[in-house]
């Protein structure tokens, strides 16, 4: 099994700061902007982004978690896990600028189902997508991210392994695994 390290703690920090600066540039003080992390793994990365933005603009921003299980189009193929995780969006998304945050953008199907989920909480003014890793050649539907940590060229059989400290790992390490 071949592994290539895409991020360690140090360069992940740099990338997170850059992404947050881009967000602040576009969303000013987040008056009408909210961050929605996608379950199960996107919420850890979303929290990292939220912490950094709150540090920089010195105020709390609105956040939520969304589980896309009930909106997926592939839940009956026996591959995906059935048990849904928690969804917490305790406010209306009417006229908000919603930033969806996930760790890896792969086929685009999770993001499609996330957008379907989000419009059940109101009609946002705008929906944006922030991802840490964009597997740019594996898209099955025409979806692209607004903010990208790193783009990588992968084939379908390869995997991205995201180990963040928040998930209980000793250090941040993000690997590309080639079989």
């Amino acid at each position, binding site marked *: 099994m071949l592994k290539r390290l895409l991020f360690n703690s140090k360069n992940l920090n740099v990338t997170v700061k850059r992404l947050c600066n881009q967000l602040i540039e576009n969303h000013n003080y987040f008056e009408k902007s909210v961050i929605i992390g996608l379950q199960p793994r996107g919420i850890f990365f979303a929290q990292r982004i939220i912490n950094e933005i709150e540090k920089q603009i010195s105020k709390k921003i609105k956040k939520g978690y969304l589980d896309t299980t009930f909106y997926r189009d592939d839940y009956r193929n026996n591959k995906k896990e059935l048990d849904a*995780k928690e*969804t917490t969006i305790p406010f209306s998304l009417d006229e908000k600028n919603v930033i969806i945050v996930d760790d890896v953008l792969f086929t685009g199907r999770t993001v499609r189902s996330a957008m379907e989920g989000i419009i*059940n909480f109101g009609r946002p003014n705008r929906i944006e997508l922030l991802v840490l890793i964009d597997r740019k050649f594996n898209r099955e539907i025409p979806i692209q991210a607004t903010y990208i940590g790193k783009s990588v060229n992968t084939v379908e059989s390869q995997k991205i392994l995201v180990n963040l400290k928040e998930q209980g790992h000793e250090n941040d390490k993000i690997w590309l695994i080639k079989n």
Partner: protein
Amino acid sequence: MNKLNNKHLLGIKNLNYDEIDLIFNTADKFKEVLTRPIKKVPSLRHITVANIFFENSTRTKLSFELAEKRLSAEILNFSSLGSSIKKGESLLDTIKNILVMKVDIMVIRHSSPGVPQFIANNVNASVINAGDGTHEHPTQALLDAYSIKEKLGNIKNKKITIIGDIIHSRVAISNILILKKLGAKVMVCGPKTLIPKYISSLDVIVENNIKKALKWADVANVLRVQLERQKEKYFPSLREYSLYFGINNKLLKSLQKDLIIMHPGPINRGIEISSDVADSSSSIILNQVENGVAIRMAILYLLSHNIK
């Protein structure tokens, strides 16, 4: 554990602890869905569900129908009243005719025990038992146990007494089975004539004194006196039943303790339970109905996983 072992839900007796836990966890998520501005998810978009009711129902039927709609399923409703059953069409012929209309899940209520099992043996669709005679009513038991868990935090070692017409009650049987599986202590209480002779083989305590039963319990699940199933007299009069086994505020006050009151509905106000108790703050009767939708959504969702 992330799926059910069977393609049907015929009774609590076929579920294990992990499956019950999965249903409860999934229902938690659907309860959240039901608080959203748009209370609908597309999970069952390609699934057709037939609600086949050979026996009267308000709550179960509406609750199933709403659960199906909230999951975006296609729905077919059948009730035997006004159907060709009256012209002499057999049960299996009726079901097979419904099935060729490409139905994936059948929700069945019938006054004869074993009908859902019989249909499950003979057709390809997933079958959900919505109550079969005096046998089982698994979705009611699941929502009852879920409501107790929601109120008390957990069910293990909690004391639950089921009161009233045990012998005619599928709710009682399914409740006993699920509560025992979840580790509760269960007591049945009622007139001797309404308690089956061999009920203690299910490892439940039998009590004939209502006050003693309520003193012992954390939760009282009060059942309806099912006059429609009583072809002979089991007690002298409803007035006498109400005097000896009816639950009223005076009786509850005399216990000097908190007690949760449940009832699967429909309520016969003034017979097994008085209005002041049914509408009091210790009653979770309407919470049960509310939880029923989430529980049925969870079951439909989990069973539909097997459908291609």
